[in-house]
């Protein structure tokens, strides 16, 4: 543990920067993928094109992408922008499929009912389809979150300051402890993000965690709750 104790400042700095480098691409890929998912649901051709493009993007090896991006973007080789753009590309690649599936998962009858009572297609998207796509969107976002946090480390090879530095440096110095602390910190970040995402889901989608009627109506067996039900079923005897 001596290395870790001596280098707490470095680990903390790298962790914070790792978090910052992850948050931006996660948010951006969500913001970009949702409209693309909407486009994908317009017709089967667009869906095929969008989803295939997403999959293709994901097959680009990360290292060459990090190296090439400065030439494409005209950024400096050490610029953080390269890492952010590369990770956003991967995030979108994963998220676009989830977004398309999420929006397609909204019940057709509910959509029609919304139209029938007077939602315009714009308000219907924001107030009905997007919220109801929430659970599937959240599932996709959790995958993006984990994969982004893992990929950030690769950026260390082109000089990005993040936990990946500990892997490179630890290998050069043959310091297993340094590598391990990098792994542990990455996992902790991934866990933290996941907890935050799930908590956000609970807050933004309260209808998801309420006990459906049939669980309450089933009197003899003890009431089963889907985690953290805000509407308690304890009244069932």
């Amino acid at each position: 543990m001596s290395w870790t104790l001596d280098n707490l400042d470095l680990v903390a700095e790298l962790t914070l920067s790792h978090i910052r480098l992850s948050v931006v691409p996660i948010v951006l890929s969500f913001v970009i993928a949702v409209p693309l998912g909407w486009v994908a649901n317009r017709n089967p051709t667009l869906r095929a094109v969008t989803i295939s493009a997403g999959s293709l993007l994901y097959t680009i090896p990360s290292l060459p992408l990090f190296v090439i991006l400065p030439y494409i973007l005209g950024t400096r080789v050490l610029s953080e922008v390269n890492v952010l753009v590369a990770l956003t590309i991967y995030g979108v690649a994963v998220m676009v499929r989830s977004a398309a599936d999420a929006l397609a998962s909204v019940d057709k009858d509910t959509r029609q009912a919304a139209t029938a009572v007077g939602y315009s297609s714009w308000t219907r998207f924001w107030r009905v389809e997007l919220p109801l796509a929430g659970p599937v969107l959240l599932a996709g976002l959790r995958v993006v979150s984990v994969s982004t946090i893992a990929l950030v480390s690769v950026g260390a090879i082109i000089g990005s300051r993040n936990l990946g530095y500990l892997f490179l440096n630890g290998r050069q110095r043959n310091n297993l402890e340094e590598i391990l602390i990098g792994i542990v910190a990455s996992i902790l970040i991934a866990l933290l993000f996941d907890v935050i995402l799930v908590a956000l889901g609970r807050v933004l989608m309260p209808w998801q965690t309420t006990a459906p009627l049939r669980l309450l109506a089933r009197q003899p067996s003890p009431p089963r709750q889907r985690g953290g039900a805000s509407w308690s079923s304890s009244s069932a005897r």
Partner: protein
Amino acid sequence: MIEFQGVSKVFDDGTRAVDDFTLVLPSHKTTVFVGSSGSGKTTLLRMINRMVDPTGGRILIDGEDIARLDPVRLRRRIGYVLQAAGLLPHRTVVDNIATVPRLNGVPRAQARAAARELLGTVGLEESLAMRYPNQLSGGQQQRVGVARALAADPNVLLMDEPFGAVDPIVRAELQQELNRLQRELGKTIVFVTHDIDEAFLLADQVVILKTGGVVAQVGTPGQILSEPAEDFVASFIGADAGKRQLYLQHRQGDGDVTLVVDGDGRPTGVLAGSPAAPGADPR
């Protein structure tokens, strides 16, 4: 008043759902479209709020050709109740009811307060206000659906097989409630069903439809029962099977009750005025 003038609908796949349909639906009355599936009854209903646009003819509401109106605005002026209620699963009961006023720009607090009052109108307890639709029974959901349709106080109420998905006891309850509401509110109701008894129970005007949106008969329940226009109508209302012909059957030694029985001899009720008190049963 809603007027259909020579309205036709041919869908893209060539299906003719409605053919040259002309009818006046009087204001403050309940008109029921009844027919089996494929009779175009739901298509007719959906043309009134432009969920479906006709391929021929025109529809007027209070003299206004609805083809010239913005569909979204039109829909907010018309109450709509769907089968299985069609509530938004992510909105609480009050927010579901407040949907249309909110879309019309009524402030949230005001819209919610009005929605809570409507709960009473449709016979629901206020304690249900903050529940989500999946926490309600089918009958309760349907009442919320009616409340939502009434929230913007529309003149016209469209009801698309609203009670089709609830059990018979609840359905009978909801039908009675609708009749009570209609006596109080006097809306122009257009109701779609495949159940002829429901049609007779609710309608001022019944429209019996055949396949392809062809009108078999239009009239009050009394007119249709007393003079079925053709064999199709007679069979549809069950007259040819003897269900609509009732006889009086005097039961001797059983407290002098006069039973009303149908053509098959199945009892359907007791003649009013005959001593029928259950307690008087000698057994």
